[in-house]
């Protein structure tokens, strides 16, 4: 088992913490993991991305040029990373703010309207765990049980009261994800 994943979007969308939850879930499942962020000015509101690798073998390079899966959360990231999904790979994106939709035919493409759903539920902070749920639905690389453990490990203790809401958001995300049908 080996998954090379990039999550890309704006700083503040919870891109890095989504990656951390997933990586910690991998640790809980006894996999090898790596989590490699873009860092620097990106942390302060610009684009942010994180490469997560999960494998049952030791991970050689923690960075890659192309990915098994890309989770894309803004237009800039779509422009940059659509072409870097491996043939046969997966691209997941939130349609919010996307004006140019993906065109690749050799990969599986899914949409998840998590921004809208989180806003509808009045808690935009659950956005990233919804996305994570959607991802796990199509790429069940770790068990839900270990994801919940990873969630607990990733969140600081003071945020543990939001664990149930986040677990619920993962489940909602699993329902929310749709296969992309070009218009």
């Amino acid at each position, binding site marked *: 088992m080996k998954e090379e994943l990039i999550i890309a979007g704006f700083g503040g969308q919870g891109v890095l913490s989504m990656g951390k939850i997933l990586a910690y879930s991998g640790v809980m499942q006894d996999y090898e*993991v790596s989590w*490699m962020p873009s*860092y*620097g000015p990106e942390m302060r509101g610009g684009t942010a991305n994180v490469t997560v690798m999960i494998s049952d073998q030791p991970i050689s*390079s*923690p960075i*890659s040029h192309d990915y098994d899966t890309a989770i894309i959360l803004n237009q800039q990231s779509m422009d940059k990373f659509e072409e870097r999904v491996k043939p046969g790979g997966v691209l997941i994106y939130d349609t919010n703010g996307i004006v140019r939709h993906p065109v690749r035919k050799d990969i599986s493409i899914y949409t998840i309207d998590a921004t809208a759903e989180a806003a509808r539920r009045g808690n935009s902070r659950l956005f990233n765990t919804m996305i994570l749920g959607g991802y796990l639905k199509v790429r069940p690389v770790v068990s839900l049980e270990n994801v919940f453990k990873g969630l607990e*490990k990733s969140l600081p203790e003071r945020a543990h009261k939001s664990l149930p809401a986040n677990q619920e958001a993962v489940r909602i995300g699993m329902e929310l994800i749709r296969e992309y049908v070009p218009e």
Partner: protein
Amino acid sequence: MEEVKLMKGNEVVAEAAVRSGCDGYFGYPITPQTEIIETLMEMRPWETTGMVVVQAESETASINMVYGGAASGKRVMTSSSSPGISLMAEGLSYLAGAELPCVVVNVSRGGPGLGTIQPSQSDYFQATKAAGHGDFHLIVLAPNSVQEMYDFVFDGFDLAFKYRNPVMILTDGLIGQMMEKVVLNRQRPRMTDEYIAEHYGDWALTGKKGRKYNIVTSLELDPQVQEERNHRLQAKYAAVKANEVRYETRLCDDADYVIVAYGCSSRICAKVIEMAREDGYKVGMLRPITLYPFPTEALKALKSHVKGFLAVELSTGQMVEDVRLSVGSDVLVEHYGRYGGMVHSPSEVYDALKEKIINKLK
């Protein structure tokens, strides 16, 4: 207590400091290593092990605080990134001259000057050959994983005290910022004052109780005596070279071509040799773990069957000089690397390997 955690390379240095019985950390914020002091301040080790943590006013002050702490026989350390390490050059020279133990972590970034905050390996010359003025060497360890960031803090202190010499952990923004699984297994208490007085009482400033007074200095007015001091230092470096070389080889036994890479580049190149082997090229890798002492003999031995070496580093070509010095001029040695904060991908390195080595030797 053994714990498995997902942590950043930088964060784990803080954990390792506390768990390795470090007495004092003195540092100044600079990207991409600021998590080290942030994590320490969050941990508040002064309430548990009694470890002192000080945010100094500059890197200059940090390294001189390290000098003071080390002079009193304590396990002390600092960390910084490239421009800050340059500011520490003078202090490192004094530490080496006064033969004091300490650990200095350089989470390096692109240069020269203020440069970038992204990963780089362009401080190799500085770390291994010219960390400051005068004839001295640091012992330089190059971790390539978060686990090694943890382990090398322990090893660093051990080497520093064994040889009474500063040890540098030379890493980069990639390893510092990356999170991986880490087993926090080793743990030891801080040394007691009695232990220090007993074991290091012949040089450490513990108060001259029951002994003649100690002086920690790198000053010598008589050049003849200074030359003798230099002889002593050189003898120490010779012992370090004889005993402390560390490296790792991967698929080198049958290799026609060998990549030499350390730190984050060795991780990227581990993927490159997988790619090359899939295509039927016999490619191996030698990873120096100690950059000083450099694994010269191991590289020389590979010459018997290896046709070409590619040094891969995030610099315009620094370690490659040591590779050339090791294997000589009668075998092909080339360099490849992105720099300035750019990180080469495995496929970029693989292309370079084919172009600069494999195709040339066909």
